[in-house]
């Protein structure tokens, strides 16, 4: 029986990609349909709309939430070979709630929201204490660093290479580690289990 489950799970990886365990956003930490501040009772609407979406952020997926205008302090370190600039692309969308400057209820045109993230989910605008995002992670970086796997040839454990499964346009973004739609069903919306630090060690050759 267990073997069958494993078999189908592995099959599911190939067929369904991210939707590893048949989990989804419903009931996850990103399902705000029951929150008092979301009077629509809908799930997707907090971030997405089918029409008249905000296209100010590159490749924004039918965006429907007020977008952060913060100036961020990116992560820097003497041992960092990549250069992190201002967060862009999808990471900027995540930060539109998680930098703590935009109310989570500022969506669908509303700008007068009052519910701000606090505690751990609020990473702030100072990203110097956070894993760098919006950095290019390619074979050249891996070679320069010496402690990173080559993303174009290394298996992510999710079916393809790191580049294919975890990077977006060769960039590390929030979505490299986190699946906002909870496809894996793992705590903290992680894209892959971090048991035995498996998520960290997917890229970090330590």
């Amino acid at each position, binding site marked *: 029986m267990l073997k069958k489950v494993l078999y189908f799970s592995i099959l599911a990886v190939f067929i369904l990609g991210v939707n590893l365990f048949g989990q989804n956003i419903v009931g996850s930490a990103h399902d705000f349909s029951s929150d008092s501040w979301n009077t629509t009772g809908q799930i997707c609407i907090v971030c997405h709309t089918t029409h008249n979406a905000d296209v100010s952020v590159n490749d924004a997926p039918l965006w429907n939430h007020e977008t952060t205008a913060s100036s961020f302090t990116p992560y820097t370190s003497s041992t960092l070979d990549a250069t992190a600039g201002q967060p862009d692309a999808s990471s900027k969308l995540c930060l539109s709630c998680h930098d703590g400057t935009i109310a989570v209820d500022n969506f669908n045109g509303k700008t007068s929201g009052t519910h701000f993230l606090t505690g751990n989910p609020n*990473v702030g605008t100072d990203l*110097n204490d956070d894993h760098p995002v919006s950095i290019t992670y390619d074979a050249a970086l891996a070679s320069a660093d010496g402690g990173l796997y080559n993303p174009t040839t290394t298996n992510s454990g999710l079916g393809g290479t790191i580049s294919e499964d975890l990077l977006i346009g060769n960039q590390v973004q929030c979505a490299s580690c986190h699946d906002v739609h909870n496809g894996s069903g793992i705590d903290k919306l992680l894209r892959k289990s971090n048991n*035995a630090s498996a998520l960290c*060690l997917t890229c970090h050759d*330590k």
Partner: protein
Amino acid sequence: MLSMAIYSQSIVNSKHNLSVSGPGDIKATSESEICIFCHTPHQSSPRKPLWNRQDPGSVYEIYNTSTTDASAGQPDGSSVLCLSCHDGTIALGDVLSRAQPIEFSGGISVMPPGTSNLTTNLSDDHPISFIYNSSLAASDGELVDPSALSAPVKLENQKMQCTSCHEPHDDTFGMFLVATRSNSELCLFCHQKNGWSLTQHNLSNATWNGSGNDPWFHTPYTTVAENACENCHTPHNAGQDSRLTNYQAEENNCLDCHNGNVAASDVQAEFAKIYRHRVYSYTLVHDPVEDALVQTRHVECVDCHNPHYSNSSSSFSPQASGALAGVRGVNSAGNSISIVQNEYELCYRCHADSPDKPGSPTTRQIAQNNVRLEFDPANPSFHPVESAGRNSNVPSLISPLSESSTIYCSDCHASDNTNISGPHGSVYPHILKFNYETGTRVSESFQSYRLCYECHDRNAIINRNDDFGQNVHRKHIVEEDIPCNQCHDPHGISSSQGTEANNTHLINFNTQIVQSTSGGLEFVDDGIFAGRCYLRCHGKNHNPESYN
């Protein structure tokens, strides 16, 4: 299984995997994450490198020594991060990203006592958090210029930190070192000791015979060459803080090997003899930066030997042998020199102008215990240590010695065991190599004055049918039982005190035996094998007695 194969040299299989899957004894009871013990992806502190532990905030006792040109302050940079486990003050499982400390098996909280727990006393550990720049390298003189520092040793913002030697994620070389310790490869990236390439401590393949103390108790290596720096030094938890040596008592760092158990010569046995250089009597008196001219009396192995430099090259007098290579000294002019050329220059550190030098064993007409002045080639007579002697007619010399020969101090002052070089110890007084009787009356024999007879033919001394042999020497030393030492001062007579007329032939009477007569106390040189003596000895007056 796949991940195990990939991570064969990674943190996953090292002791730094503190998770429940870790291979070491110190690990969590159930926490599965590995990186978490040090890193967190969000809300890190200190921010770099995404640190997940508290700053220990400890005040450390730091390494401090007379020979360090660097100024090490309190640990900073990444070293503080290492110390957040390795100073033993913070629970290993106390990470920022967990509300409760991660539980460790065996009830372990902080780092247990042992070699991994450096404690807050870092005075016995290699210094860290100091700026290592070109000026440091220049002032030290035996450090590689950091611009030439090759991988894998890295500095952090110009500073030497724990991570200069250790890569906490990779245990390929053991101890999470960035390079192997074999032949001290790691140490030598920075430390360039003068003379090291030729020293036996770098080259010898000698092994330990298994007796006595294990000289290499903190390494996995089995030859002198492999242990290299670690023959004597250890970078952490050293026995003697300031030198990072295995033991506090200086000589013990040498004698674990130089006792016949590794090195062939058993020098330890020499130091067990009644007459010896008293290396056991002093501890922490010697300082490598002390004046070459020793101010406070002491002696350690490293006063005479430079363990970074000594080698097996042989030499001819007066040149210093390889065993004395790279040691300081005082030259014939009384000036300190950084490297001796001649053996006597080493002896002059203590036995010449040193204010605390040993006294003379014999009370003489002309008192002098500064051997540099005694061996001065300008003297009316001297044993030929600095240069060939002045007497061109010494009929007793045994070939190949001649009037143009020079000798070492250690030709007379050395072990009675002729297999051991140098004046470490002897059963004979004054660390003499052979017997040398100096009593009031001594029955003459080869053994009585063997020290002298090794160079001066006994037969010539007592049997030559002339004023050198039978008429003077035989009369005194055979017929009257008078030791050589009563008339001869074996080192020499300083030109500032003695004269060409009275103190040739090393004549300087022992005034405890030889006294004045009405004509005074005097030897007068009257030419080859000719002279007069004014003295009184055992009631016999010479006033004068002449020979010619």
